[in-house]
């Protein structure tokens, strides 16, 4: 026997409502529907009884907007429903033809997906089923005696629904936590990777910086070394520049230093290596302007000189041209100078020859005193380039020639 339920709207008790609303709001943020709720946000409750009449009674008692009651009139129907949908609670009549409520419960509990769904058995007072029900784990299973007290059933269902909502909430929280942990681990890994990269970069930068610093220091030393060398050369030129008067000294010395400076520009421009001999010659003759090409001819192959050779040949050209202006071909209006160079390939090392030949100038007279200029074009050049120099005061014009192995004037010597 079952009590005829009062009007549903009254009986969906405030208590039940509060429970459910509280649970739902905690479990499901707005817009999120629990997985066991149907599409319209209601909670599925499976009611199983072979008597349609009893099912109607249960429906009447549990009628509430947030419950969706699914009927099953046999164990088979119940199992089918359980396969299709998820449920928060199962209300199960024990006495059924075919598989009993107990057998169905057994199957439900054995299936992993449904094992956690709480079951409320409906049983009669003082019958032999009592001890069987008590054999179940409390919590997973509850029971009610017939005739059913609607308030108690609603209350029990509400508690179980709330419990499941809480569980679901926990699962959600757990999932969120796991996701967060995974995300954090991921971020931490990224951070760690970034850190490693950063550390690597810092190391690389530091190393690069150290190398750059070392290079700068080396460069500074090199600059210091070269400066001192050039100062030594300047000092030697000053020491060796002989002159009758102070003015004459200043003039000669300045000219020599100027020639050195011109050479130096060329050396720096070529980064102290591979100086085009043609550039070198033109540089030293630049102050003659349009005489070059008119009275001064240049002829020779493309050839690159080492810095040492360029400095030496530059000084020689300065001394030769100074002499030509003062005493030689450029001291008259007609005199000419031919500057030629070539590399002669022979059985021995290729030989480099540079010739300065003056003509059509005033008759040449060998000087009585050999000054520093002469030293530069003979001894110095021969010594620097490990070659030979020939100086011929031919009356038709001065002829100077340098011969040395080509390797002595090339970079790498």
């Amino acid at each position: 026997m079952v009590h005829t339920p009062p009007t549903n709207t009254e009986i969906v008790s405030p208590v039940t409502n509060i429970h459910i609303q509280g649970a739902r709001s905690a479990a499901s943020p707005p817009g999120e529907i629990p997985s066991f709720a149907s599409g319209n946000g209601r909670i599925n409750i499976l009611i199983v009884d072979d008597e349609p009449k009893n099912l109607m009674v249960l429906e009447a008692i549990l009628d509430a907007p947030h419950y969706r009651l699914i009927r099953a009139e046999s164990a088979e129907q119940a199992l089918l429903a359980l396969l299709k949908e998820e449920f928060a609670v199962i209300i199960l009549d024990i006495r059924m033809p075919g598989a009993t409520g107990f057998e169905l419960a057994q199957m439900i509990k054995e299936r992993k997906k449904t094992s956690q769904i709480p079951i409320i058995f409906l049983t009669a007072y003082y019958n032999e089923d009592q001890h069987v029900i008590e054999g179940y784990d409390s919590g997973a299973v509850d029971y009610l005696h017939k005739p059913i007290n609607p308030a108690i059933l609603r209350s029990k269902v509400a508690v179980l629904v709330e419990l499941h909502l809480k569980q679901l909430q926990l699962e959600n929280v757990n999932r969120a936590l796991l996701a967060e942990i995974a995300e954090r681990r991921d971020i931490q890994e990224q951070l760690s990777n970034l850190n490693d990269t950063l550390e690597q970069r810092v190391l690389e930068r530091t190393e690069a910086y150290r190398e750059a610093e070392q290079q700068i220091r080396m460069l500074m030393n090199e600059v210091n070394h070269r400066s001192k060398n050039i100062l030594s050369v300047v000092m030697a030129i000053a020491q060796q520049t002989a002159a009758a008067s102070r003015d004459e000294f200043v003039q000669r010395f300045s000219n020599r230093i100027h020639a050195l400076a011109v050479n130096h520009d060329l050396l720096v421009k070529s980064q102290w290596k591979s100086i085009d001999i043609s550039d070198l010659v033109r540089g030293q003759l630049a102050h003659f302007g349009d005489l070059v090409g008119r009275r001064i001819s240049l002829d020779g192959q493309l050839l690159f000189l080492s810095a040492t050779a360029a400095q030496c040949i530059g000084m020689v050209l300065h001394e030769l041209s100074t002499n030509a202006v003062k005493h030689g071909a450029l001291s008259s209006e007609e005199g000419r100078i031919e500057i030629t160079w070539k590399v002669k390939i022979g059985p021995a090392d290729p030989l480099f020859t540079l010739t300065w030949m003056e003509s059509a100038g005033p008759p040449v007279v060998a000087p009585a005193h050999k000054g520093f200029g002469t030293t530069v074009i003979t001894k110095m050049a021969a010594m620097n380039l490990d070659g030979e120099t020939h100086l011929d005061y031919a009356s038709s014009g001065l002829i100077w020639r340098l011969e040395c192995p080509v390797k002595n004037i090339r970079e790498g010597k």
Partner: protein
Amino acid sequence: MMTRVLVVEDEAILAIDIATHLTDAGFSVVGPATSVTKALTLIGEVGCDVAVLDVNLRDETAEPIASELRSRGTPFLFLSGVYRDQLPDWFDGAILLSKPARPAMLVAAVRQCVGNGPLT
């Protein structure tokens, strides 16, 4: 007999200048040599009582010359633009005259070097 000074300097104009000053000061100049090979040849064939060496000779260093002179007990000094911090290990406390050196200083240093005998 005049004291023989070996001059080793790859920059010819400096070599000539040094040689001039030493000659003027009454020394007999051996060389100048512009390379290690030439210097060693001169030491072997001509000999010297003292030597003035540049540290760097183009793409070589004066190390073999220094060690040859050391083994012969011949005093020598270095004349170089090399920064003191940059001196190689084999320099080993030898006298260093910094470039550019004033002629009087150079002559005095060579005299002192000879007077004191081997310095290294």
